[in-house]
């Protein structure tokens, strides 16, 4: 049941609106209840082929030899795709916002870094024939020691998961193996606290489990273009990622999507489109690549696990005076989006509370598991779990009601947040008050009267003196450098005709790509 509390903050709103605020029926509801909403897989194309990938059976192994001879001769096989067929096999998703180094192949070359990593793609007339050919692909593995625990991965001598990041951590600003947050003097704050509480929290990985699995259908279109029906959550991320990997101009593709059977963050990674389009390029036929449910669950990217340590200093009267956080994001074998989640997480510290001394170190760590990606609550869900369990423990420790404890420490308009921006438009206190009212949870008068609009600012707006860490020397000139940073080719070649069915697209002479870089520089700038 949902109740709109129009009485609260009424003076900040103009409610004189016609369409806004109405519970209008969804535009897509009729399609949904009649089953006529068109998802990517609802396109029936003549002569469609089926693409499936051979996945690594090892979590970490060198690939001695991949033999596809027998598979190529298998009945119904139209094409076997190997890493060498992919124009730009190495990519990282956030290269489109110039963040991070290309670290992940579309198909494994010399090594596999997680169980389920794609090695070879099979394009066949039917799913059954694709399965038969997959069984005939011979992969000779040399198993390597694997690491699955984020803190084990950081120890010296741990197996190197991803050679692009030999320390098993993403590199921030060329120098740091973690994202920092520094606000005030946390050690002084802890030293002056009445109680100090340090705790460890562990968030599980999570599978998005949309009822529609990831997938796409690609087909040759007129004028040498390819039409691509896709389940993507980010249409232009997918267009430009494919343009980069396949090394063609982005207008080679006509992407159609927008009606997706659930995503929750699990359809951001463009995991099926590049191979699917390449399959269509190499065969001249429509190709479908849809993840099976087990593939989706085990090898589709999950929400990454996080391990979080929180150390808080609290006064007897309930004021939190210091919060020190160390968090490890389990990125799996490749970066995908975890590097970014760590930054978002650092910005989220210390939660919606005004604490004068806050310190955060957030690591993006590589392990030999399925690469993690975004999910609903990206970078924040696990930290909220940790912070709010910690808040409950702190309230217990000082003998305060947990609701009142939160109101006491809540951020208010005009306060300085730890990422050094003024808090505005806050409403935590009111949410606590209304939830208490709904749950018939008694609050004392002073807490019932508290307001997000009062009592903030003043000395709460100050940044206390903040000690700085010693800065290490950069390991390399520019670790964030990607192929996108290379000098642009002065004149572009005209768009090549679609390649003949049996041969891979010609490798370009000069490094070039058709993708759009979404933004200028992030992460390379130094202060």
């Amino acid at each position, binding site marked *: 049941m949902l109740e709109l509390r129009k009485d609260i903050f009424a003076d900040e709103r103009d409610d004189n609106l016609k369409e806004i605020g109405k519970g209008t029926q*969804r535009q897509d*509801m009729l399609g949904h209840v*009649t*089953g006529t909403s068109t998802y990517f897989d609802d396109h*029936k194309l003549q002569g469609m082929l089926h693409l499936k990938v051979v996945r690594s059976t090892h979590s970490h192994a060198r690939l001695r030899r991949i033999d596809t001879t027998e598979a190529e001769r298998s009945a119904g096989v139209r094409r076997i795709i190997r890493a060498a067929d992919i124009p730009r096999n190495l990519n990282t998703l956030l290269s489109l916002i110039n963040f991070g180094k290309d670290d992940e192949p579309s198909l494994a070359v010399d090594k596999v870094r997680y169980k389920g990593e794609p090695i070879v793609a099979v394009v066949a007339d039917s799913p059954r024939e694709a399965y038969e050919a997959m069984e005939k692909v011979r992969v000779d593995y040399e198993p390597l020691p694997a690491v699955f625990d984020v803190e084990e991965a950081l120890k010296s001598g741990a197996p190197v998961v991803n050679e692009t990041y030999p320390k098993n951590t993403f590199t921030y600003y060329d120098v740091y193996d973690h994202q920092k947050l520094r606000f005030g003097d946390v050690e002084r704050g802890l030293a002056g606290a009445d109680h100090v509480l340090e705790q460890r929290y562990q968030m599980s990985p999570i599978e998005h489990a949309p*009822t*529609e699995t990831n997938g796409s259908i690609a087909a040759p279109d007129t004028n040498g273009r390819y039409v691509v029906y896709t389940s993507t959550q980010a249409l232009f991320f997918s267009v430009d990622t494919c343009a980069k990997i396949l090394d063609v101009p982005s207008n080679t593709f006509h992407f159609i999507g927008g009606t997706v059977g659930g995503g929750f963050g699990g359809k951001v990674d463009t995991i099926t489109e590049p191979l699917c389009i390449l399959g269509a390029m190499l065969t001249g036929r429509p190709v479908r690549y849809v993840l099976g*449910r087990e593939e989706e669950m085990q090898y589709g990217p999950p929400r990454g696990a996080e391990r979080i340590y929180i150390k808080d200093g609290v006064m007897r009267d309930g004021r939190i005076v210091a919060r020190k956080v160390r968090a490890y994001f389990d990125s799996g074998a490749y970066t995908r989006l975890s590097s970014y989640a760590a930054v978002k997480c650092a910005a989220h510290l210390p939660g919606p509370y005004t604490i004068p001394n806050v310190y955060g170190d957030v690591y993006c760590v590589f392990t030999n598991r399925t690469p993690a990606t975004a999910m609903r609550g990206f970078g924040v869900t696990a930290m909220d779990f940790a912070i709010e369990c910690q808040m409950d423990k702190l309230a217990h420790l000082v003998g305060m009601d947990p609701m009142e404890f939160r109101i006491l420490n809540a951020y208010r308009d005009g306060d300085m947040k730890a990422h050094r921006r003024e808090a505005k438009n806050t409403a935590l206190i009111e949410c606590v008050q209304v939830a208490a009212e709904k749950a018939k949870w008694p609050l004392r008068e002073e807490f019932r009267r508290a307001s997000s609009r009062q009592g903030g600012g003043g000395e709460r707006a100050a940044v206390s003196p903040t000690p700085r860490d010693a800065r290490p020397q950069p390991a390399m000139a520019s670790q964030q450098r990607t192929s996108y940073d290379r000098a642009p080719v002065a004149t572009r070649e005209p768009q090549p005709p679609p390649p003949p069915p049996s041969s891979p697209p010609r490798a370009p002479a000069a490094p070039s790509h058709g993708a759009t870089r979404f933004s200028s520089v992030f992460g390379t700038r130094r202060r």
Partner: protein
Amino acid sequence: MAKTALQFRHNGRDVAIFVDGGTNLLVALRELIGDMTPKFGCGQGGCGACSVLIDGELHLSCLTLAESVAGRSVQTLDGIKDGPNLHPLQRAFADNFAAQCGYCTPGMLMAAKALLDRNPQPSREEVVEAISGNICRCTGYEPIINAVLAAASGRARA
């Protein structure tokens, strides 16, 4: 390899197709007949997105051997409307905002129809049981349960 001829009733019309050995009914409906209303969610029998009625009984089309419906009657979501008019369940799902991404909706509706066809006035527990083979990742089930109850009682919004 020879294909097998297969005839059955699909939403009240006779259809004839040729299937490969081992083809499941979901593939036959979607790829050979072109009825896209049943959805592929798992192929394992775990999600219910492919649910259809066979001779009025709820079945998972992904686990049904296409050949086994020879001479039988298969109803999908595409066949539950009365001419241009929505089935009361479709209307109730809409009124109760019981769909978000919409991907589980065809299967949910068929599961709900299988219930109401047999038991027009179910209890909440019976509704819960009836949709228990269908996964919805968006709604938290509450609006779906309310929609089925509303359809049963002839109410619009619960």
